[in-house]
């Protein structure tokens, strides 16, 4: 049977793509950020997942406002990255796992999550940058992938509780997959930041810190809040913490933090990283 080995949540700021391409890991601006990742690399080398199920939000590469799914799940053999218009390097394609994707689709619809299915899907920086952070190298990705896209472009967004519940349903679906695969769930985005409006530059360290402390043991502390409240607390783009809640939901049960990092600022953003494992209650 398939098994979830852990959950990783990380920011996906576009500037990281440029910093990786320019090899700025030791640069004083970037070092406190990149130094967060080696413990996760060691954990991945030890746990060797076969598949990554990635909760992320598209920023106008694959989806436009003509058709904007609330939840979309990839079912492609290969996911390509492409030009997003403002110049981050495009990364090599990511192998999919269509059989697992269709299993998840069937189980999710059974569980009354009426998702959009995508046999072709371009993946943007919110998917590619976490992959490059977690598996650095030349794009020889050692895992197959299943992208799960949650709308944060256009309100109404799905509620935090709904995203957490989607994650739980994805977790149950993974664990009912009969093949013997090891799965890591990933949630990308956040933490607090706001790009638009007179409130641009908003960052909320106090909330982020508490969110990271509570996520493993008490995810409902955040998931219970309304979208409006979360935007107020975290910024218009800080709402990407929905992906963290979905990943935490997928991990299920009681969880503990294995490793975390938090650094302000990377670009306009409070950058966060967490690695969680399930623990016996």
């Amino acid at each position, binding site marked *: 049977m398939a098994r979830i080995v852990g959950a990783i949540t990380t920011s996906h700021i576009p500037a990281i793509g440029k910093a990786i391409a320019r090899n700025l890991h030791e640069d004083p601006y970037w070092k406190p950020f990149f130094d967060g990742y080696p413990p996760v690399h060691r954990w991945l080398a030890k746990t060797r997942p076969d598949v990554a199920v990635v909760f992320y939000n598209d920023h106008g590469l694959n989806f436009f406002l003509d058709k904007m799914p609330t939840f979309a799940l990839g079912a492609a053999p290969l996911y390509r990255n492409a030009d997003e*218009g403002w110049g981050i390097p495009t990364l090599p394609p990511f192998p999919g796992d269509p059989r697992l994707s269709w299993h998840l689709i069937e189980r999710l619809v059974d569980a009354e999550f009426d998702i959009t299915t995508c046999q072709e899907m371009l993946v943007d920086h919110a998917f590619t940058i976490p992959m490059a952070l977690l598996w650095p190298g030349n794009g020889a990705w050692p895992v197959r992938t299943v992208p799960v896209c949650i709308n944060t472009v256009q309100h109404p967004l799905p509620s935090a509780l709904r995203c957490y519940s989607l994650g739980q349903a994805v977790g149950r679906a993974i664990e009912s997959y009969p093949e013997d695969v090891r799965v890591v769930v990933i949630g990308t985005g956040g933490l607090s930041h706001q790009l638009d409006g007179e409130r641009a530059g908003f960052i909320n360290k106090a909330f982020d810190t508490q969110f990271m402390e509570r996520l493993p043991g008490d995810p409902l502390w955040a998931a219970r809040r309304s979208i409006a409240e979360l*935007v107020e607390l975290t910024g218009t783009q800080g709402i990407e913490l929905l992906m963290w809640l979905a990943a935490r939901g997928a991990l299920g049960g009681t969880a503990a933090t294995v490793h975390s990092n938090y650094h302000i600022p990377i670009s306009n953003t409070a950058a966060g990283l967490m690695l969680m494992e399930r623990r016996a209650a």
Partner: protein
Amino acid sequence: MLRPLPAIPGTTLFDGVQAMKGYALNKMCYSFNSAANRDEFKRDENAYCARYGVSAEQREAIRRRDVLALIAAGGNVYYLAKLAGILGLDVQDLGAQQTGMTKDAFKAKLVAAGR
């Protein structure tokens, strides 16, 4: 009925009202995922805007490189980012312009948020 979202100071949530208002502008910005389209816009901004049916108000905001006016006119930050890329503006430039700060002061504000 369209339900107004709770007001957050300095923030325009991109909802159905904004999505309707900004459709043509955002559709044009979405086209900037293609380098050929970016070049075409750079060759003749007005002709390119006209082809997408961008409104006079939105065209004026583009002419003035006025981010707050673009947002008020229905622009969505994720699509506007592609326009900003053409104009050579990064997210600190956008933040500085919208908050009326210099870029250095805006960056200092970000650093201060970490203390």
